[in-house]
């Protein structure tokens, strides 16, 4: 009996907890709205944004996680709410974690999105497969703010499909307490340094991992030559024995907790970890790097193209672009937003490395041919699944034989037993 009372009491507790959580949520929502009315956003062309004011339109925005200013911190804008207030267009905002996930969603059909923000190589792949459509730049006057050197990149040579949103570089994040080296001396070969065996993390994504090997071999990041790809795979195989683990987002936790000493990482995220763990430092190696650009696009399946273009234009409003970049810590291709950053950030070698290095030593991914992609994937799987010495190659055939043997044995025994029963 006692037990019964206890469980009733426990369930009450749980329900009470849920209710209080709900009410807290409601409160914060109300707060947001109040705060939000207080803000005055200046846009150049008010009339442009009010075209769909009462049409009851909604758009589906599909973006990376943590990739827009949400107004959670004090003094920042809630970009999506601002957009709805200004234009009357409702924003359905959802997240994805990888370019490939986005691609699989669009390719599979069924889902409709009006705005997506893929990275460079994925944009060129989507252009090729007709998954995204040309933009009407007449509707995006704010494109004028996008800096010249981030336009017309190789993935979209005439810049017809995409409006750059953020960019960044890949570099090495390392623990300064254990690795005593000058910043100038740090290069990609640190990831191959046997002194730090088992303290090295590596990208768990063939494209990014191959890029590092390709830089070290002196090849283009977009090489499709079989010989060069194989050589890069050899390089990665050499590294395998000293790699602690192949990870992506876990780099964040593992480096932050001091689980590993060295890892390749993206500049923007590196800044966030360095805030948490002061021993870490980030360097963009001199021998070259991958420059990545994430840009806003409109899928072919979009239902509200004009409203989507309005959203893109809104994201390029100086105030909005600034609060986004301030929130996500990546680098901005937006000239006015860049001007609004404080001087320290503008000169930060991590977010805004030397322009010369970017111009001469960095390369943007473009999509590889299907054959090259497949080759890379195969080499990657082969590298990762390469067995150590103690292989049990005979295991599965022997195992299957044993299984079949047991089946036959049992069947024969049963047969004999049945015969005995008859007599």
């Amino acid at each position, binding site marked *: 009996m006692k037990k019964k009372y206890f469980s009733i009491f426990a369930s009450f507790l749980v329900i009470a907890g849920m209710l209080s959580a709900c009410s807290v949520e409601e409160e914060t929502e109300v707060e947001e709205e109040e705060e939000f009315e207080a803000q005055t956003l200046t846009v150049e062309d008010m009339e442009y944004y009010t075209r769909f004011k009462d049409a009851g339109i909604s758009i589906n925005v599909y973006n990376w996680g943590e990739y827009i200013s949400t107004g959670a911190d004090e003094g920042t804008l809630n970009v999506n709410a601002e957009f709805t207030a200004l234009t009357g267009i409702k924003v359905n905002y959802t997240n994805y974690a990888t370019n490939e996930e986005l691609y699989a969603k669009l390719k599979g059909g069924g889902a409709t999105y009006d705005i997506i923000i893929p990275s460079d190589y994925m944009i060129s792949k989507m252009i090729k497969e007709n998954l995204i459509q040309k933009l009407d730049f007449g509707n995006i006057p704010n494109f004028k703010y996008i800096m010249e050197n981030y336009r017309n990149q190789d993935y979209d040579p005439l810049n017809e499909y995409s409006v750059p949103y953020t960019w960044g570089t890949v570099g090495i994040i390392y623990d300064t307490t254990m690795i005593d080296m000058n910043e100038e001396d740090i290069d990609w070969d640190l990831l191959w340094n046997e002194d730090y065996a088992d303290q090295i993390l590596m990208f768990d994504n063939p494209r990014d991992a191959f890029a590092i090997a390709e830089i070290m071999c002196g090849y283009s990041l977009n090489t499709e030559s079989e010989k060069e790809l194989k050589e890069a795979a050899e390089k990665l195989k050499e590294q395998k024995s000293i790699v602690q683990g192949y990870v992506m987002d876990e780099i964040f936790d593992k480096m932050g907790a001091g689980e590993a000493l060295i890892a390749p990482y993206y500049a923007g995220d590196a800044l966030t970890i360095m805030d948490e763990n002061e021993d870490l430092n980030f360097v963009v190696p001199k021998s070259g790097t991958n420059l990545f650009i994430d840009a806003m696009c409109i899928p072919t399946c979009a239902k509200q193209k004009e409203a989507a273009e309005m959203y893109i234009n809104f994201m390029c409003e100086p105030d909005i672009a600034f609060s986004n970049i301030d929130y996500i810590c990546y680098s901005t291709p937006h000239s006015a937003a860049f001007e609004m950053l404080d001087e320290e950030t503008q000169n930060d070698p991590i977010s805004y490395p030397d322009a010369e290095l970017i111009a001469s030593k960095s390369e943007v991914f473009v999509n590889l041919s*299907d054959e090259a992609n497949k080759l890379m994937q*195969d080499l*990657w*799987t082969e590298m990762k*699944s390469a067995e150590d010495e103690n292989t049990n190659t005979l295991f*599965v055939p022997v195992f299957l034989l044993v*299984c079949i043997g047991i089946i036959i044995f049992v069947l024969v025994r049963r047969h004999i037993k049945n015969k005995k029963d008859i007599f």
Partner: protein
Amino acid sequence: MKLKAFSAPYLVWMIVFIVVPLLMVVYFAFTTDNGEFTLEYISDVGQYANIFMRSIWLAIIATIICLVVAYPLSYMLSRMSKHTQSTMLMIVMLPMWMNFLLRTYAWMTLLGNNGIINQLLGMIGLGPFKLINTEGAVVLGMVYNYLPFMILPLYSVMVKIDKSVIEAANDLGCNSFHTMFRVIFPLSLPGVTSGITMVFVPAISTFIISRMLGGGSNLLIGDLIEMQFLGNSYNPHLGAAISMVLMVIILVIMTVMNQFSPDDQVLI
């Protein structure tokens, strides 16, 4: 007749969410992008033989460990008083109330190089040992996550073994060793086979355990399939082919298992 009508919604459910997807897997495995018939993808699966071997091997080890740990535990459970039984069962089930990912994630902090286990060992002057990112860690993750699936079927069979059967065996001169192997074990066989199935099948197809505890260098079949859909080269056909081969392997192994259980308790 009326009872049959009640099962109709479930029938529809089964067709829409089990039969049709299975047929689609088969269709994808045997066709190209243009819908032409091909055996290319099935034969491509051959090159991943070593990954298949590793998955089967690790899953077998995990299953055996689960069985060895769970069998005595379930037996003790089934011989306890009713009240203690329900408390103990709840303790067994307790970890399952938590999210699967969270439980595996916790092992990452426990096993890490600066993790809790290594820190404790460090205090008495041992280590640090390389615990995470090894095959052992993957097996540990499997055993930890799937142990309740072994305990529950074993327990539910053993609790039905009548006490008088064991007493009779003792009266007729069986020592405790003989009672165990000639009376209790044969009677618990259905529980053993269904427990093995319930641990082996999820263990062989898991991908997140090897991702989190294996450090990405202990690829399993599950990782391989995931890579075909969310990896760099989007190839649902190869992914479907690998899944199909995996299903066939599981089917073969389950057929072997069924040879051991009484005829009326066949699982598949």
